[in-house]
């Protein structure tokens, strides 16, 4: 281990924190505004002169009085519990489907050699290049013909067919795993599937976790899909509820921000605890620091 003088170390650390804090200000300030507005009451937001209050002072950022009731009120204006359940159901299904299927396909593209592999990969990339607006009608007609209109199926089944974004991502990650490990397993007599599940998957956990998180986020935020294919209000999702909420309460900033915060908090919690998996490195040689 290289020893450094502890004082120089401390100074470096302080400097580092300083840089990070300075950089984070433009990212955080809007968030702080969101949070503080969500706790304000209408009287603080709409000053008497009809002028919206000027937020450029520390005082203006602090809710006064603090109105926690904005949150329960926001939750009661839409069938929150119902929407939450539907959303979680969809999230679970799509995460399972997308991560599993994308991993399988990515393995095929990255670790196996076969005829037409590169061409097909390029075709897959190209499927992301066409704006969805123009395929909406044929896709919609297709789902209708299958009898899936009005159900969750159009939102779930395609997730099990791999997702170009995740396949591409995983392919890149798989490519960084040394070929020797797979070779060793094959020499030991393992089938390709065993190599995949027992050698590659465990090593790719950070990448798989990234995909899972993104898919969860994507489904959580998706309101257009449910809107298009579902007509039963009992099946709607939180994202749809938020959209409705936003268009209902156009000028009521406090409620709007409270709704947005409620919508975002579960993801923040998820990410905060899931981080560890991203920062886990691959110990390929088994050596630890």
């Amino acid at each position: 281990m290289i020893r450094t003088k502890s004082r120089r170390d401390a100074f470096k650390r302080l400097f580092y924190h300083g840089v990070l804090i300075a950089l984070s200000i433009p990212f955080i300030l809007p968030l702080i505004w969101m949070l503080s507005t969500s706790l304000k009451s209408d009287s603080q937001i709409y000053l008497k002169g009809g002028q919206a209050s000027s937020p450029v002072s520390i005082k203006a950022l602090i809710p006064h009085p603090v109105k926690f009731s904005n949150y329960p009120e926001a939750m009661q204006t839409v069938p929150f519990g119902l929407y939450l359940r539907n959303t979680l159901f969809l999230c679970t299904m799509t995460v399972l489907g997308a991560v599993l299927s994308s991993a399988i396909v990515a393995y095929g593209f990255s670790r196996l050699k076969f005829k037409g592999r590169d061409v097909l990969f390029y075709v897959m990339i190209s499927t992301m290049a066409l704006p969805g607006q123009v395929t909406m009608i044929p896709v919609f007609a297709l789902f209708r013909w299958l009898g899936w209109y009005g159900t969750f199926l159009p939102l779930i089944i395609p997730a099990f067919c791999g997702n170009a974004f995740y396949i591409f991502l995983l392919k890149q990650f798989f490519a960084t795993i040394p070929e020797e490990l797979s070779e060793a397993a094959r020499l030991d007599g393992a089938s390709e599937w065993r190599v995949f599940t027992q050698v590659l998957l465990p090593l790719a956990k950070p990448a798989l976790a990234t995909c899972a998180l993104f898919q969860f986020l994507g489904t959580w935020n998706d309101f257009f899909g449910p809107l298009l294919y579902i007509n039963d209000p009992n099946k709607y999702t939180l994202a749809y509820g938020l959209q409705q909420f936003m268009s209902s309460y156009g000028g009521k900033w406090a409620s709007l921000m409270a709704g947005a915060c409620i919508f975002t908090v579960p993801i923040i919690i998820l990410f905060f605890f899931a981080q560890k998996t991203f920062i886990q490195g691959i110990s390929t040689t088994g050596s630890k620091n």
Partner: protein
Amino acid sequence: MAGEREENGKGFNAFLALAIVIVAGFAFSYLQPQPTVKTYPSREKVIFWHMWTAEWKGVIDKIALRFNESQDKYEVIALSIPSSVADSKFLLAVAGGNPPDVMGQWSPVIPKWAESKLLQPLDGFMTPVEWQYFQKYAYPAAKRIGMYKGKLYGIPSGMNAFACYYMPKQFVDAGLDPNKFPDTLEKLTEIGHKLNRFDDKGNLTRIGFLPSQWPGVGMYAPGYGGGYYDWKNDKLTINTPINLKVLTYLVDERKRLGFDNVLRFESGLNSGSSGSVDWPFISGAYSITLDGQWRVEQLRKFAPDLKYKTAPLPPPAGGPKNYGWTNGNFLIIPKGAKHSKGAWEFIKFWSGIAKPERAAEFYTWGGWIPLFPAEANSPIFKEYVKKNPEFQTFLNVAASEHIYPIPPVPYQVFLSDRIGRYEDLAIRSRLTPQEALEQLDKDIRQELDRRKRYHYND
């Protein structure tokens, strides 16, 4: 270097976190009470899509409930869709063969959708008596909104009328008689100048009267007998002397105050869109402002102590007393609707073709202009007007022959977009009013040429 030590076992953290969030979420969701809705399982279901939200959604639900209670053959199920996506959802549903049975719309879509055979003509559902009644008694503007090429495609369920709201106190402070609202546009403009207020840096602190940017020419030109459309002869009239005069007026008024000055002043105000207490007029930011009749209901609910008055937009000297622009909500029945008879019954119920007195009540709930004089004159509505005397101004405007919606051409959305664009460019002084109208005219001619090339039947 000291590192964060991770063993492979902890690698499941992300997935564990995911699982916990999901399970916790499920558990939490059951703590919320389930909403209950009354349904009639044995009846024919009429699916109704609309874009109303917030307190208006409540009104719609009430109307649907009343309809369901008034007969026992159909059940109307109302679904509120966010307006930003309602059109795509509706179009896809029609294309896919699963349209709703009736839809409440307010965008300028009737000509285009009628031409594309998306809508069913409603006069086909009417008995000859009903059709006669509609033709004879519906307000002229209401007929113009809903009709295309002689057929009726949309029954207006709530027309909008615009008039001036003003602050008597500010009149008094400026030495003007609050009971004598100016009777010509010229006098109004003059008074508007008098009522502007600035701070010592030259920034606006109050606007007296500023003719609105949207609707622009469409609102003021009928006062001169002009506009973008000649309704008698079914022709577009774009680059005309009257339109030029009106556009120049709008541009000059804004230039007087300074475009940037007005922009900054207005962006410092609340948006007024939430329909509650944040309408800037309430705070006195405008002495006189042109706005729609729904504000009357809002003011009654959220600012009942506000002392204000209303008056119709005065015409230029010699012009008609009540004039202007209008739009409104209307109900349409798409092609392929499976329960179109039920849809028609619902429309009849709401609009009051069969029983105007019964329907009059619905209009009071929404603060909407009714469709027929019989509704406006019914006891319930008269009672409402008594409580909100300013509403009478808007009824007068709505009944007038001189209010016009957007020209009923199949490329209506395109036209509306282009009008907005060129009027905007003129007001921002990027083009002179003359140039703006010439280019608008050119664009429309190009579009007409294009339609010929594509074999549209115009």
